């Protein structure tokens, strides 16, 4: 019990640390894409930039606009941050760690409904944006909040449907179980390429990241749902986006890219500490790669128009996801007849 709490505390710190350094990485990647240098003043290679940013956020005046609903204005960023952090609990960060007599599972909890838990947290996360945007009593914030909410609810459907096909293949909803299957065999992306494509597109939309960042579209809505937020409340919103990016990269790596599986190395059943450590390192490597993809896409593709976004979600992604389910289901239904 104690080890689980310590593990969760470490996980919290790592998540926040990764999110902080994602901001640095984002700037560096953007600079690289645009042939600039990027931040290089704070520390060597600008490595202390996130600390400087965080310090600045804390020092700014915490302003509450007139006629704002103070209680909800406070609650919005809190919900956004909390739900973003809660998802990491069910993700298997590694195998079983054994040092001498001490053993620890690198997953805080492995409920039977792991994927559904992730979805539940994502669906609660909408409230952070909606309540914050509404409570700040600003029309741009309200428009941003409404855009964000309708976008997230629409893309949640396609995301859920793309997962249904994956679940048909794995036969379990537990994230630990899904990784265990991939330790022996091929990664799920081989069996579900279309599912992965749908999932990653929906993940961009769920994180409100470019090219789907219409909720905070500067050219139309000033700052979108966080127009009126300042100081660390704004910091929480921005931070929650980076935490979401980290967690959705972790979920993608878990579901489709073998989680902590090390390619070309049979680690099933091995609990030496170095195997586990290597697996966890591998997992973080995959996560960093997906985070890079998030940034890559952001600095490559222009923003969608709002009706294009809704058309893509409802008229393309959902039919494709249903087709994927039919194909997967049909394959598993007909397989016994074809290969007798």
């Amino acid at each position, binding site marked *: 019990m104690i080890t689980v709490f310590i593990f969760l505390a470490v996980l919290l710190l790592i998540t926040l640390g990764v999110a902080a350094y994602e901001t640095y990485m984002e700037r560096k990647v953007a600079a690289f894409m645009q042939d600039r240098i990027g931040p290089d003043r704070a520390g060597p290679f600008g490595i202390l930039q996130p600390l400087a940013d965080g310090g600045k956020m804390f020092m700014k005046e915490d302003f509450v606009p007139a006629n704002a*609903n103070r209680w*909800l204005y406070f609650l919005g960023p809190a919900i956004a941050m909390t739900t973003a952090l809660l998802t990491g609990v069910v993700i298997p960060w590694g195998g079983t760690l054994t040092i001498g007599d001490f053993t620890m599972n690198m997953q805080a909890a492995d*409920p*039977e*409904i792991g994927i*559904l*838990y992730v*979805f*539940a947290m*994502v*669906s*609660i996360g*909408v*409230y952070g944006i*909606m*309540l914050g945007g*509404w409570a700040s009593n600003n029309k741009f914030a*309200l*428009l941003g*909040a*409404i*855009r964000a*909410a*309708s976008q997230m*609810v*629409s893309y*949640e*459907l396609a995301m859920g449907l793309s997962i249904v096909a994956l679940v048909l293949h794995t036969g379990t*909803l537990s994230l630990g179980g899904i990784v265990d299957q991939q330790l022996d065999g091929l990664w799920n992306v081989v069996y579900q390429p279309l599912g992965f494509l749908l999932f990653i597109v929906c993940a961009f939309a769920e994180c409100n990241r470019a090219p789907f960042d219409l909720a905070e579209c500067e050219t139309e809505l000033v700052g979108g749902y966080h127009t009126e937020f300042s100081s660390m409340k704004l910091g929480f919103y921005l931070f929650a986006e980076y935490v979401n990016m980290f967690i959705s990269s972790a979920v993608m790596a878990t579901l489709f890219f073998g989680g902590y599986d090390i390619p070309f190395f049979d680690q099933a059943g091995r609990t030496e500490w170095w195997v586990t450590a290597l697996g966890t390192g591998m997992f973080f490597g995959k996560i960093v790669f997906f985070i890079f993809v998030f940034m890559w896409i952001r600095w490559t593709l222009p923003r969608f128009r*709002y*009706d294009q976004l*809704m058309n893509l*979600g*409802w008229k393309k992604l959902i039919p494709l996801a249903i087709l994927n389910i039919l194909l997967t289901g049909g394959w598993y239904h007909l397989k016994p007849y074809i290969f007798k």
Partner: protein
Amino acid sequence: MIYLFYLFATISVISALFVVAAKSPVNSVISLIVCFLSIAGHYILLNAQFLAMVHIIVYTGAIMVLFLFVIMLLNLNKSTEPQKSLITRIAAVAAGGLFLLTLLGAIKNGIGIATPGGYDGGIGLVKSVGMSLFTDFLVPFELSSVLFLSAIIGAVMLGKKESTAKQMATGDSAYAGLNQAEHIVR
């Protein structure tokens, strides 16, 4: 465990009371969300994990978002709230009281009835829920899915009518999309 039950029960009752008592509709919706979350907690205590998560995803994550949506778009507040006449209020109280009486009677008769075949701790897990849905309750399950299909088609028809009548603004089409979302999620 029993402390957790009391905690969730207290939260459910207080938040449910607050849903009715709150003056601002947004506060009502938020306390209803809290109530749903605490009910999901009850489900987890009963080891009905699947039901708990689906409850959060569907009710908390989809339907309440739509409630909040409508309230935010209409900007409802106390001054625009319609005042009910005295007779309506008395009728509502009487109807609610009768319903409470029925519920109390049902609960009183239900105390001590054992689950047929003994209690099975795994009854709320995905596997057993799926098995019973697709074997014992297949026909009702399929019929209800046909019902939802008709609801989806109805929503699409309503959305289409508006868009042909006049070009919809972006926000409106998003809203129509959300209507469909609710039906599909249900």
